[in-house]
């Protein structure tokens, strides 16, 4: 059997399959998961493909176990991921927190569906944006990416692994049912064209090694199980040795480290795709499937003679605070289309800080936002300013 690691070529596949291929192309060799619509196809693809490449697929008893297993696998030195949707994402929160606290690289793909609770298993929503940001208890920073097409499912899965390895944390892919289930053209590049970032290994001796002492970039080199460093890894607040340091000072030092490694590197992490924003009076800020509706609406607005622009958030967390703040003096209005009751719009409002009006275009899930609705909001925003 000589299955290919990277299926170089042009494919017609859905977003879930593209996610699987992206993961394999960047070196993921462990998947633990639990079936859930609309993310099941990621697990199914993985169960077929991983054994071909000498990797492990295991279907766990629930999503709590799935998340725990991928953390364990990561400490075993293998790039690992899981996929799920809302109900499973809720169950994963506990061990996402463990992954944050123990600085464990791994990837979680949440193919969002309507909620709360069992909600709309087969229909689209973008209701887990804030859950991805704050869902596990305590204070921390997170990285989350939001693809708008099967091609981006492939590309962003690669980037998610690279970011997780570079910054040592679980990175979340916030896809949605439409992206997961839609078939589109996906171009898989040649193996040598795929950027792969691996976690830094320690270069010092066991005696000198401090498992959680960061380098200049804020990230500590990572010894894995069996490297001979005899690491101790705990979800308790810990010091640079990894030993419990349970007081205000220990907490301040550890949480600062977890927060600062993301905040201080945010300019390298945050990516947006900007369209017509240089002269834009109305800027639509959107992500995922809603960004595609927004793109159409912005083009239509331009045809109508309106100076509209689009910021498509590729990284939803951290939020591109600096970019929004820089545009606020120049822009007459921001519009955020999203399939929830208004989540990322809160971030947009925070960054616009009352200096320019922000409006929400949304539904609670079950259907994508039609471009005409966004176009209507653009027209309204322009009129409002006259």
């Amino acid at each position, binding site marked *: 059997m000589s299955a290919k690691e990277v299926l170089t070529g042009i494919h017609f596949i859905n977003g879930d399959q593209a996610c699987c291929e992206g993961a394999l192309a960047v070196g993921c060799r462990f998947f633990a998961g639990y079936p859930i619509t609309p993310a099941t196809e990621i697990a199914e693809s993985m169960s077929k493909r991983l054994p071909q490449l000498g990797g492990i697929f295991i279907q766990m008893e629930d999503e709590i176990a799935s998340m725990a297993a991928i953390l364990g696998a990561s400490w*075993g030195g*293998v790039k690992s991921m899981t996929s799920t949707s809302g109900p499973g994402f809720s169950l994963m929160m506990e061990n996402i927190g463990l992954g944050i606290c123990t600085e464990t690289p791994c990837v979680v793909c949440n193919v969002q569906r309507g909620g709360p609770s069992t909600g709309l298993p087969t229909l689209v929503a973008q209701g887990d944006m804030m859950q991805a940001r704050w869902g596990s208890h305590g204070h921390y920073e997170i990285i989350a990416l939001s693809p708008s097409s099967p091609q981006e499912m492939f590309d962003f899965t690669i980037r998610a692994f690279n970011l997780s390895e570079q910054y040592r944390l679980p990175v979340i892919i916030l896809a949605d049912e439409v992206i997961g289930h839609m078939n589109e053209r996906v171009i898989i590049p040649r193996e040598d064209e795929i950027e792969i970032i691996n976690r830094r290994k320690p270069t010092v001796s066991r005696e000198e090694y401090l498992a959680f002492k960061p380098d200049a970039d804020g990230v500590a080199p990572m010894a894995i199980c069996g490297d001979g460093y005899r690491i101790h890894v*705990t979800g308790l607040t810990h010091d640079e040795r990894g030993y419990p340091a349970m007081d205000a000072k220990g907490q301040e030092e550890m949480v600062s480290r977890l927060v600062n490694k993301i905040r201080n590197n945010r300019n390298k992490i945050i990516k947006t795709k900007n369209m017509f924003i240089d002269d834009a009076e109305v800027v639509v800020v959107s992500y995922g499937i809603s960004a595609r509706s927004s793109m159409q609406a912005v083009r239509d607005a331009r045809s109508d003679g309106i100076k509209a622009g689009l910021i498509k958030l590729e990284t939803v967390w951290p939020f591109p605070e600096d970019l929004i703040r820089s545009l606020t003096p120049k822009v007459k209005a921001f519009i955020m289309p999203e399939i929830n009751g208004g989540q990322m719009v809160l971030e947009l409002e925070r960054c616009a800080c009352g200096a320019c009006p922000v409006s929400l275009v949304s539904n609670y899930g079950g259907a994508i936002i039609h471009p005409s609705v966004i176009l209507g909001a653009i027209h309204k925003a322009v009129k409002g300013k006259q």
Partner: protein
Amino acid sequence: MITQKAAKSAQSHPMDFLLRTERIPHIWCPGCGIGTVFSAVIAAIKNTGWDPNSIAMVSGIGCTGRMAGYIKLDSFHTTHGRALPFATGLKLARPQTKVIVVSGDGDLFAIGGNHFIHAARRNMDITVVCVNNLNYGMTGGQQAPSTPLGAKTTTTVNGSPEEPFNFCYLASSCGATYVARWTAMQVRSLRSSITEALFKTGFSFVEVISPCPSSYGRRNRMGSALEMLKFYHGRSVIRGDIDPKDALMDIDKEIVVGKFVDIERPTFLDNYAKFNHLQIPHWRPMHSED
């Protein structure tokens, strides 16, 4: 008079090579049985003669969960109940590492009960040592799935209205390949049982009935730690190789101890390799440059 040499030897211990000595003293209460079990685990590890770098310990949360913080192995103190799924991922990513899970009865069988039955069913090649102190010690002595019917805890002040699990029977019915129970007073048997479990391929399980004088003992008027130990020991009856369903665990009647299961069964990895036509030894961590 203490000589200098004796004073020095009192400061070091033959098991120091497996201890994070800088973390001692430990947090366990005086009279707690966990120290005894910890020492049996360490002695068993030494008995195997394995390279410590090829062994990992994974624990959950609770008093017993703190063992992972004192042992000088790659050690992982995970979330409450999740030691087994974490250990599952670790073992599958690194089959060459021997993985030991240590945790309490509440961690393994209440919040982690679902994970326990499935890890046993899959026959994950993991050794589990469960310290059963009949209650939740870390949080101050609440009812656990091991708490005897009628026993007093801080959440069952008038007596527990629930029948407890028989962990050994549960483990064997889920497919564990090695199942044994001892009290914390039967140190020699415990040590050799854990050693045997470590050498066993597959899901091996050793339960230790251990005194918690600060909480369980105090609330149930069981006297000092030593009296508790003697009580458990006095109740224990060695009956190896009996049907695990007859291995009674009832502190009011009989604590049946011994080895109840020692069978061979293909592990998850054996079956995964078989059905996928793979060679397990060829798997290597993918990220490393070596």
